[in-house]
């Protein structure tokens, strides 16, 4: 069986038979009845909902980064300290060298 051909044939069949768009009688009344008690949300509520939803992943990311930085920083702490010291005293060393000349 040619599966490519069968697939194309079935897709063509789906295109040739689009679903109907008939609507049950007075469906809009049912929709409006369902909307009773539902309030349209204003712009600020929508924003706050989105921000609350984003808060959990952001918090998790913060925790993960904190854990990662704590676990990896012990080894390079001394290196950082000496590098900082070197950069702070570098101008003094050049002055001393210049005075020596």
């Amino acid at each position, binding site marked *: 069986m040619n599966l490519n051909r069968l697939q194309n044939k079935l897709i063509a069949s789906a295109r040739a038979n689009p679903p109907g*768009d008939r609507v049950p009688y007075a469906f809009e009344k049912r929709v409006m009845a369902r909307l009773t008690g539902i309030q*349209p949300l204003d712009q600020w509520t929508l924003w706050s909902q989105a921000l609350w939803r984003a808060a959990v992943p952001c918090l998790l990311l913060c925790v993960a980064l904190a854990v990662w930085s704590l676990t990896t920083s012990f080894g390079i702490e001394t290196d950082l300290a000496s590098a900082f010291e070197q950069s702070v005293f570098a101008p003094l060393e050049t002055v001393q060298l210049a005075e020596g000349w």
Partner: protein
Amino acid sequence: MEPTDAELIRAVLDGDRESFEPLVRRYQARVFATARRYARREDEIEDIVQEVFAKAFQKLASFRGEAPFEHWLMRLSVRTCYDFLRQHQRNRENTFSDLSSTESDWLDRFVSDPDDADERAEAARKLVERLMSHLSPPARLVITLLEIEERSVKEIAKLTGWSVPLVKVRAFRARAEMRKWLSRVARDKYL
């Protein structure tokens, strides 16, 4: 003269709930047609359409009016249908063992002469429906939008909220999934 969509939306946002009814009446046929692509039972279809309009009513403030209301509503419809597929994915069929006699005849006709099998036949339509019900939710959505409704990748990205590369990846996987099911039909029936 009938009020425009923008006028009705403004009225709803100003507190006149009844102005939402003409919007429902105007677009419900399109939403029904969309929902019928993803659900089979009429009660499920009605639930989806009600859900779409409930969401539209609640989120109406987020409609900025840059594109037509219909496009915004269609995006909402497609996403609601996708949620429906994901919620019902456990009910997906796993076998192709119970082909009806007309479906089986149509396949026989296709095997003997592919041109002889009419794609407008009811059996072909049923077979596609059955095939689609086996696909995973993303595969079904992508095949429907890309292959059946012949939309572009960009349009699908806008409708679904997926990125363009994700649509392409899912389309590739969906075709492979469809091919897998078709080969299973062929194996079960002819081997």
